[in-house]
């Protein structure tokens, strides 16, 4: 990186050490610490919602079972409100299920889907992007046209189409989000690879007769990792948003499994009497997505300011 952009590095050095005021530095650190903490907490909550994967289904962070409710405890408001019970911190839904526990279990769905999709799309996108950027020519032209299409095709329609043919499920969501999700990665990696293919060290590798595949894997790939990590972080939020939207529409994760999207859909009919059913899962989505976006921005500022779209 240094060899390519010495000037930018120099500027950065200045900007990040001497250039910033004390207050600005504190703000910058906070934009790391707060979102990182929230995301870490979410991951912990997702893993330890219960310990059934250790053979201990009765121990865990979730106070209640997310799918079985107590019928006599239906529509109880959050415990801090009048009429709430202390054992249901965020109230209960139409079947007497604990909203907090369902939000906690929803974390599992959202985080696992976004991790899966990110790894699938980043992998495909990187392979195609490096090929496109380094080899160029007709392959590049074709891949770039395809990328444009994928970027402008509304993924939601594809997801609906898949839901109707394969039925709504966890894997349908993963598939629907992956089929178009590679495109932004391809475009970004292709741009990087194109620049790198003109760098001196790549030219030298070519001159000594290194085969293209080796150049792509050993010389280009290591140099796109930074941008890749930034982009992967930035997509956490986007994928969680899309997953929750699909679940909200009823074509993603369906009842009785708890997901943030289908909880909001559930609460839609009881807005006038039990707003908490729809409100809390939405706040959870907002928190995670915002944390992911802030963390991605922070990483981008730190690792690769060239990518900054201001």
């Amino acid at each position, binding site marked *: 990186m240094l060899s390519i952009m010495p000037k930018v590095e120099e500027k950065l050095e200045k900007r990040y050490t001497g250039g910033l005021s004390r207050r600005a530095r504190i703000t910058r650190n906070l934009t790391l610490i707060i979102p990182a903490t929230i995301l870490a907490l979410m991951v912990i909550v997702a893993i330890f919602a219960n310990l059934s994967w250790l053979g201990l289904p009765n121990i865990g962070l979730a106070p209640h079972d997310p799918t079985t409710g107590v019928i006599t405890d239906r529509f109880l408001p959050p415990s801090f409100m009048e009429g709430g019970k202390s054992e249901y911190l965020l109230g209960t839904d139409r079947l007497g299920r604990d909203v907090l526990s369902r939000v906690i279990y929803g974390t599992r769905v959202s985080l696992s889907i976004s991790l899966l999709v990110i790894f699938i799309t980043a992998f495909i996108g990187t392979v195609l992007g490096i090929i496109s950027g380094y080899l160029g*020519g*007709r392959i*590049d*032209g*074709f891949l*770039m*046209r*395809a990328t*444009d*299409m994928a*970027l*402008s*095709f*509304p*993924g*939601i*329609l*594809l997801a*609906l*189409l*898949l*839901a*109707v*043919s*394969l*039925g709504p499920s966890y894997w349908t969501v993963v598939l629907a989000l992956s089929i178009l999700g590679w495109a932004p990665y391809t475009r970004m990696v292709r741009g990087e690879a194109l620049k790198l293919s003109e760098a001196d060290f790549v030219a030298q590798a070519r001159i000594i007769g290194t085969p293209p595949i080796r150049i792509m894997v050993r010389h280009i790939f290591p140099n796109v990792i930074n941008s890749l990590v930034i982009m992967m972080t930035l997509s956490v*939020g986007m994928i969680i*948003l899309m997953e*929750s*939207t699909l679940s*909200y*529409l*009823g*074509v993603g994760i369906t009842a009785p499994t708890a997901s943030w*999207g289908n909880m*909001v*859909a559930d*609460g*839609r009919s009881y*807005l*006038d009497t039990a*707003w908490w059913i*729809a*409100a809390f*899962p*939405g706040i959870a*989505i*907002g928190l995670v*997505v*915002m944390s992911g*976006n*802030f963390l991605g921005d922070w990483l981008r500022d730190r690792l690769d300011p060239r990518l900054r*779209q*201001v």
Partner: protein
Amino acid sequence: MTRFIILRLLFAFVALLGIVVIVFFLVRASGDPMSLLANPNMSEEQYEHIKERLGLDKSWGEQLVIYMGDLAQGDLGESLLREKPVIDIIKQALPNTLKLIIPSFAIAMLMSLILGVLAATYRDSFWDTGVKFLAVLGQALPGFWVAIMAVLIFSVNLRWLPVAGMATPAHYVLPVATMVFFILPGMMRLVRSSMLDVLDSEYIKMARIKGLPERLVIWKHALRNALITPLTVAGMIFAMLVTGAVITEQVFNWPGLGRMIVTSTFERDFPVVQAITIITAVFVLGINLLVDISYAYIDPQIRYQKM
């Protein structure tokens, strides 16, 4: 240039064929398409009748040929539940969707221009911070949730606005606001960043040195050039509008295409979902084609590329 346009048209056509074939096989991906098309209450006779009418007794190759022939003639098939041609259903729902999308798009466009330019011109000011804050919120909160919370506040608690439907102008307020909230952040950021790029350029400095009033520099010279960038992402804006319409129509029971496709998904009315998807694909291809061609006019270098 002609060669360029022909090549692009050819590509668009091949891409469309590809999409149609993929959609065709998706219907059959789950195994027996009849399991999607028939409902369990049908009699044996009805079942066989549908199977024959849809040509499902023929081989896949024959089916694909027939299907493509129908499409070429503009026949999008027939809805399974409403027993009407899909095209009629679309004709009914499309105006409602346009009534939602057009005002939303106009408002969002206007707001993003004003806010984006203000944020770029007065960088790091109150305006800029406000725009960034709005963008952060808009990109983090799910559209459907914001819409529902708006219903909770303005319809359920304050009783100012109706919950759903499209009878009076008041019915338009929340759906349009939701759409605007959905598309504004992205467009605003785009205008802001392309404005920042332009403001940094030599000809703007020149205009300033020349002593032109700042108002003219910003709103005439800079904005005109900054507007080219959003053109490149016309496709993405289209995708955003479609997604926004699907969500908004669902939340507010708006009888447009978006709700139609979601309802049809539940009813497993495959021809409707399939037709709307293919029509959208045609639009996507068309928009990309137009963007490419208009770009080739602006930048001659593009014309001589291989593809």
